[in-house]
């Protein structure tokens, strides 16, 4: 029976002409949603979801077979003598998708060096592998675009190619966690010298100085009493308000900790407003180190100027901040610079 289906699948995806492309797409078109959702549903359920699949068009099933057999070339029989094997054999194997569980296991063991348990690795994982197979530019989001992605996935050329090949390319790396946008070794084909040089350039510009223009502008944010620093991208905010709420969110945990130890109101009573008070009011002030190395109070100069000069941020305790540059001096500085 499985052979039959195999043949069926061969036939349905046999020709390489554009018209049959369309045809195969169309026949599967109506089913594509089902395919997509059905398979992801069965990721954790296992064989019980097979029955709806089995009732479907054989073409669908065989297509699923191709989708599911993610086994690396090495795991499948490489026999390729028949003309019917238009798709690479790794995809059409006898063991296909009945039952889902064992084949998933097989897929797992062959497709990832660090094995995950068969049950866990359902379609969502295979989808992730697909994402892995693609370049890192490709994100999970792309999958969700119904027309393009689904069509893409079901065009017979696409399906067999993407998954196994993607896998086979990752033989010596990217056994990374499924959800990560893993990079394929040697892709994109850019010399490592070039990659390293560009990386160094970007790193230097981040650390030394922000420049007007594109790209992120990351600065370190430290907070008195916090065990580690954070980094924020100043360009992702357009005004002080946004920056301060982002910082509040970031440093919530530390503030909460402080509150608790001080015997103040517990977590339940803390609201956003209280936090704001904590940060903006007496307890904490937001300061920054400018290009000259001076520590200034945040908020005095226009935002655009601020992101131009700000090198580091620090959330200081109010008492420590006494003596910091107050408004007049800040404005004076900014006038000099202008």
């Amino acid at each position: 029976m499985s052979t039959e289906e195999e043949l069926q699948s061969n036939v349905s995806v046999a020709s390489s002409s554009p018209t049959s492309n369309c045809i195969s797409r169309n026949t599967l078109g109506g089913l594509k949603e089902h395919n997509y959702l059905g398979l992801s549903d069965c990721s954790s359920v296992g064989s019980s979801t097979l029955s709806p699949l089995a009732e479907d068009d054989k073409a669908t099933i065989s297509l699923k077979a191709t989708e599911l057999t993610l086994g690396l070339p090495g795991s499948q029989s490489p026999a390729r003598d028949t003309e019917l094997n238009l798709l690479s054999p790794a995809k059409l194997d006898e063991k296909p998708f009945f039952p889902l569980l064992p084949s998933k296991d097989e897929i797992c063991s062959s497709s990832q060096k660090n094995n995950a348990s068969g049950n866990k690795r359902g379609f969502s994982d295979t989808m992730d592998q697909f994402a892995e197979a693609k370049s890192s530019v490709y994100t999970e989001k792309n999958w969700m675009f119904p027309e393009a992605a689904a069509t893409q996935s079901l065009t017979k050329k696409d399906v067999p190619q993407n998954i196994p090949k993607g896998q086979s390319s990752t033989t010596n790396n990217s056994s990374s966690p499924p959800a990560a946008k893993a990079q394929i070794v040697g892709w994109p084909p850019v010399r490592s010298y070039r990659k390293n040089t560009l990386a160094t350039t970007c790193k230097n510009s981040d650390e030394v100085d922000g420049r007007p223009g594109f790209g992120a502008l990351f600065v370190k944010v430290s907070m008195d009493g916090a065990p580690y620093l954070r980094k924020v991208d100043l360009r992702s905010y357009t005004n002080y308000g946004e920056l301060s709420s982002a910082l509040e969110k970031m440093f919530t945990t530390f503030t909460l900790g402080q509150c608790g130890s001080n015997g103040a109101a517990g977590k339940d009573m803390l609201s956003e407003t209280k936090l704001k008070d904590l940060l903006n009011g007496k307890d904490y002030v937001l300061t920054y180190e400018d290009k000259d190395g001076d520590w200034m109070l945040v908020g005095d100069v226009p935002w655009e100027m601020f992101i131009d000069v700000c090198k580091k941020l620090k959330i200081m305790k109010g008492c420590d901040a006494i003596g910091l540059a107050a408004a007049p001096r800040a404005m004076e500085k900014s006038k000099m610079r202008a």
Partner: protein
Amino acid sequence: MNYFPDEVIEHVFDFVTSHKDRNAISLVCKSWYKIERYSRQKVFIGNCYAINPERLLRRFPCLKSLTLKGKPHFADFNLVPHEWGGFVLPWIEALARSRVGLEELRLKRMVVTDESLELLSRSFVNFKSLVLVSCEGFTTDGLASIAANCRHLRDLDLQENEIDDHRGQWLSCFPDTCTTLVTLNFACLEGETNLVALERLVARSPNLKSLKLNRAVPLDALARLMVCAPQIVDLGVGSYENDPDSESYMKLKAAVKKCTSLRSLSGFLEAAPHCLSAFHPICHNLTSLNLSYAAEIHGSHLIKLIQHCKKLQRLWILDSIGDKGLEVVASTCKELQELRVFPSDLLGGGNTAVTEEGLVAISAGCPKLHSILYFCQQMTNAALVTVAKNCPNFIRFRLCILEPNKPDHVTSQPLDEGFGAIVKACKSLRRLSLSGLLTDQVFLYIGMYANQLEMLSIAFAGDTDKGMLYVLNGCKKMKKLEIRDSPFGDTALLADVSKYETMRSLWMSSCEVTLSGCKKLAQKAPWLNVEIINENDNNRMEENGHEGRQKVDKLYLYRTVVGTRMDAPPFVWIL
């Protein structure tokens, strides 16, 4: 056959410089072979393992210039382990022993050690020119010996090498008597540079035409250097200070204006974009511009600069220029012959990038375009068809769509037709790199039309062995075929073994070839070195049972007249 004495024929041969032509001459008859080999001064060896130094010297005893290439091309992308091979030391040792009058050595993708550089510097009195491209294994100590010992050094050209910078004083190792420098390129050095030594060196080198500085040479030093060398033709700027004070900037501007011979500009590894305007006065003379490392120059600054460069023939930039920027290039640079657009964001995230529109604009605006390397996010068949119509003169066409297997983003079709149009129209196409969603069909087109194709790079493409067979059968001039992650297997590999004798090399990684297939090939073709590179699981291949059907991770085969190489590391099996 010979109506003239040998000396006359030799004199005629002196005018024939291309390697291909000289190789052809040597095949005409025995006496021409003999005359040619004694008069050949420049030898090019595309694969250092195809021949050995002894045989080289036996045939060309008067050689003065040697070019050697080591690792396969995909080594650039980390697909070849570091210890694979490509050592230059045996070559230099043999050349030194033979006392040949070596004057020039050009190496690409080879392993060069300080020891070899030292030996090189001491063995050849007239040594003039060292060009190292994408090499590794040496430090600035090796450079110091070159500087110190090569009395007549003319060119020291280090392009994109991995050099261990000991922050030594290699620049001060050039003796005061050294005044012959024409090319000095150390842009790839990461460490500090002795600016004083550098300035003095430049000042005493009146013939210096090409100067490419590394990151550590700041703006004010640059200005001083340019004042010392107003005759400069090719300049690689190291770093620009973040906020140069107006005095430094003015000095630079003045210095630039004096460099009226400047034709080629590159570098800008760290650059404040607004400083680019210092170079505007000479832009109208520029024929070559390489801003592909200038990650910090964006959009409008790039465009402002390019708008002045009406004579540009070669442009290398980052895709941050965007389609709009490319349109500016297309309308400004009518002399453009070579364009490379590199990806700026390699970590994924795809901010400003270029699309098929930029490519079409360039093809429409630049009629002389013959070489392109284009990294982009998306492509369509329609665009490629248009490009083929606009530019039938492509010699090199390398398209890299960043996402593997991506189809035509409008029609969702494979890109077979687009690439087909390119190979059909571009009858002189010698190099092609494919990407995107591709079926066997594209290879049928390539086999049918790409008659002059010498190098083909395939990744994530094709469906069956037929694809590879189309290429092997159709492309008579194929020299280098490199394939990764494509479903080609033993059938294609073994179909025509004699084909590989006409090719320099074949690379196949993450394909469907098996160990037994490779073994069969090695048996049938003893004049081939069939190398299996197996970094992981060293012993897996040896296990019995499935041994034969085990897929081979990386296969690299090449013709050779000297048999198996002796310097292969343990993870390389030569069958």
